[in-house]
């Protein structure tokens, strides 16, 4: 068994008591630029894959004109969005209209800070990482609400109100199922949550309780991401394009970017809480197999698990129809919330009596 240490490079900040201002600024800038590059590459790849996956579900070919098999399609799209004119509606609230895409994108960028790609690659390892994630990710709602409010478009306004009611209610079940998992892991630190699963993922070890928590978390996170079947704020056949109807060019791209960054981060959190994060897959007893698995770098493991989650989200997205707004609220308040509360009680009962698997 490998002992993973928690000395990641982010700890440099804590050690640099005698570093100059220049060094700190350089450090922050380098983090920002790395994040930006990672995100833009990641989003381009995911958008390409999503379009290909959607095409496969619909018996189509998908993008295949720009580059080999269309792999440069996302680059072309990005260039198009960059060069497009920024249009502000005449009677809109100019300041809020300008600021709301930024709010969305910055909220999702800030959550990127705590994502552990491997034991050594993490920007900041704060002790209450998971709490930080849930606090910051819900800031994005503000951006959506303001975008709909400031657009001077009634459809956008309906969309914004829908978004607010949907996101705020589904935030509850997300936090409750995170709390359920914290009862098991006994820590808020994300690296420690991962390391607590060295002997097996929580989804196996926690009986039915973690399975229920996983399902609730999964459903609620699809709702948080505004994907079908919970894409009411964007509801194409009802509201046109929803809160980003009146946005074009880079401002629209910000919303788009934020959506995909959120997709990545939420699936990462699912992987970390339930599927063992960057830990390799082991079968007890097969030492050769386990060594082989250990030789694959942790970042590959994480991205692999995340991509499976993202594929399932896409699969659901391209199959199911949309819920109605009252069914959506009903599902949360009458079904998911009571279940997750009961689940939490059950989890604490399990943990107090040490009833989960140790392997």
């Amino acid at each position, binding site marked *: 068994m490998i002992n993973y240490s928690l000395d990641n490079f982010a700890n440099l900040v804590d050690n640099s008591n005698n570093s100059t201002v220049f060094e700190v600024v350089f450090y922050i800038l380098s983090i920002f630029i790395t994040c930006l590059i990672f995100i833009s590459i990641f989003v381009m790849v995911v958008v390409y894959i999503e379009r290909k996956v959607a095409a496969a579900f619909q018996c189509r070919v998908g993008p295949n004109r720009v580059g080999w098999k269309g792999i440069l399609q996302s680059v072309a799209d990005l260039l198009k969005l960059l060069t497009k004119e920024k249009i502000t509606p005449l009677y809109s609230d100019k300041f809020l209209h300008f600021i709301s895409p930024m709010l969305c994108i910055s909220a999702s960028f800030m959550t990127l800070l705590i994502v552990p790609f491997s034991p050594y690659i993490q920007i900041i390892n704060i002790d209450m990482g998971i709490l930080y994630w849930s606090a910051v990710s819900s800031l994005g709602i503000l951006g959506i609400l303001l975008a709909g409010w400031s657009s001077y478009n*009634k459809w956008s306004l309906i969309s914004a109100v829908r978004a607010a009611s949907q996101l705020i209610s589904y935030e509850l079940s997300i936090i409750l199922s995170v709390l359920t998992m914290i009862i098991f892991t006994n820590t808020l630190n994300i690296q420690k949550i991962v390391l607590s699963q060295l002997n097996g993922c929580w989804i196996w070890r926690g009986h039915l309780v973690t399975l229920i928590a996983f399902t609730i978390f999964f459903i609620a996170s699809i709702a948080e991401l505004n994907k*079908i079947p919970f894409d009411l704020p964007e509801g194409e056949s009802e509201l046109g394009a929803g809160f980003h109807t009146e946005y074009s060019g880079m401002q629209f791209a910000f919303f788009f970017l934020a959506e995909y960054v959120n997709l990545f981060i939420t699936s990462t959190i699912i992987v970390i809480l339930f599927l063992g994060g960057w830990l390799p897959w082991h079968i007890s007893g097969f030492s050769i197999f386990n060594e082989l698995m250990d030789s694959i770098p942790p970042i590959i493991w994480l991205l692999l698990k995340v991509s499976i989650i993202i594929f399932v989200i896409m699969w659901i997205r391209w199959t199911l*129809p949309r819920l109605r*707004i009252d069914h959506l609220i009903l599902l949360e308040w009458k079904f998911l919330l009571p279940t997750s509360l009961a689940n939490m009680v059950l989890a604490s009962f399990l943990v107090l009596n040490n009833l989960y698997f140790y392997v």
Partner: protein
Amino acid sequence: MTIHLKTLNEILHNLDEKKHWGTKEYFINMGPQHPSTHGVLRFVLKLEGEIIKEIIPILGYIHRGIEKIGESVSYRNFVHLTDRCDYFSSIINNWAVSRTIEQALNMETNDRIETIRTIFAEIQRIQSHTMWWGVFGMDLGAFTPFFYGFRDREFLTSIVEETCGSRLTMNYIQPGGVLYDIKSNFIKRIKQYIQYLRPRIEEYEKLISDNVIVQKRTENIGILPSEKALSFGSTGPVLRASGIPLDLRKNDSYGVYDKVKFSVVIGTKGDSWDRYWIRIEEMRQSLNIIEQLVDNIPAGKHMVTKYTTKIKLPVGYHHSSIETARGILGIFVASDGMENPYRIHMRSPNYNNLWSITDMAVGLKISDLVTIVSTLDLIIPDVDR
């Protein structure tokens, strides 16, 4: 005598402006460029939050004056104009005009012509319903059914193209016959298609009908009781969903519909679910009809008159109606004995089905309005003509 000629503006400024506190009703434009009004139909909705208080349909964005054009073209040439009305059942529209003319002239066609016409009318019904199924899925937010529906329509379109020479506006059924005889491999291909579509319909059921989200969104949404449906002049699947088995294929039995076995599908409650399920079942019934007919198409000519013969209807009123994929299409001709109709009028099923929405959708949400519009299956060029 009291006649008030209002304008739309007067209606829109009729809001209760005194209310300052609390929630306020507001008007919103749904359309003409809205993804789920299926064309250039415009609804002005009076909303309270998301709940519809009043709904005012506004038409005329694609009004081409086909009835006025019809007064200046010959009877034969009017046939191809009907292609442009309800473009998803264009062959059935052609048949309606041809039937009116043949009735007025007491022209007798042979069995081959009638059989071919019936087969193609049923093909059009399947085309229309598969397409509708895809669009219904899209309106509810599932994108994938749209492509499946289009795929199944496309296979049939290529079969039709081989015989009719066109994909959408066929101009196939003519007064006194059909434009071409059927292609030699038509029977083989249509049999293949029947084999192909049967499992696909099961798949449709799996993907959409069995889906719990769809069931929740269609059940008890947009209820149209039978008395209201009759009063609103709805026909076709919309009326049948309310429990009235009015199907001109049975009741009037034109073509060779009296020689084939098929069932009329009716609903019980008249909600969106009934309207949905009726169309799914009608696809199966249409397949049955085609299957019974395609093996024994009698021999004969495909056109009993010369195409170039000028048509002059006797003086008087001539009328006939036909069951399209969406309801009863009536053609009314007032003739003065000349080559052109003195007045020609189309009783379009979509125009008459549309208006029940002003009663059905009140008190429901925008999402429900989308469902209802989708289950009414409106073709806007046919509404406006």
